């Protein structure tokens, strides 16, 4: 009984931690993406974003996330390969 209660609390705590971690990661990615794309697409910030700046930002965000995804896969693959090599 006492164990079940602790178990539920522990599962709640783990979910909360997972959520917080995912949120923190998402925030960082959003910030990096915005900085990178802003730098490329809005070289001279004006009164408002122009149509071409907006289009550039949309394409850039898409591309940045694609790149992030690709790098994520490549890095995880490499880490797994290295771990495999490490255990002779």
């Amino acid at each position, binding site marked *: 009984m006492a164990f079940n209660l*602790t178990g539920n609390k522990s599962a709640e705590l783990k979910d909360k*931690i997972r959520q917080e*971690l995912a949120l923190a990661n998402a925030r960082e990615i959003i910030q990096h993406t915005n900085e990178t794309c802003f730098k490329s697409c809005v070289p001279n910030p004006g009164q408002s974003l122009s149509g071409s700046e907006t289009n550039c930002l949309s394409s850039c965000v898409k591309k940045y996330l694609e*790149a*992030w995804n690709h790098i994520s896969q*490549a890095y995880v693959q490499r880490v797994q390969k290295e771990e495999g090599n490490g255990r002779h």
Partner: protein
Amino acid sequence: MALDDTKNISAEQRELDEFMQQQEGLSQLQGTVRHLTGFCWNQCINSPSTPLDRTERACLQNCVNRFYDSMNIVVQHLSGSQ
């Protein structure tokens, strides 16, 4: 009874510690991927608004792997083993 509780709590605690270590590892991995994305983007991407093409994809992949190779060499030298 009290003994049982203590045992359960410590088993629970151990499991939580393990979980936290996993999350810490995940968090580090996510940080590295974020950093590598910025780094390799600058190395490989010329035009930010054209779709990601095959050459850029290959460059990103190489960038990740050569960065890792380079890191291995740096670590080797700093740890003094050749």
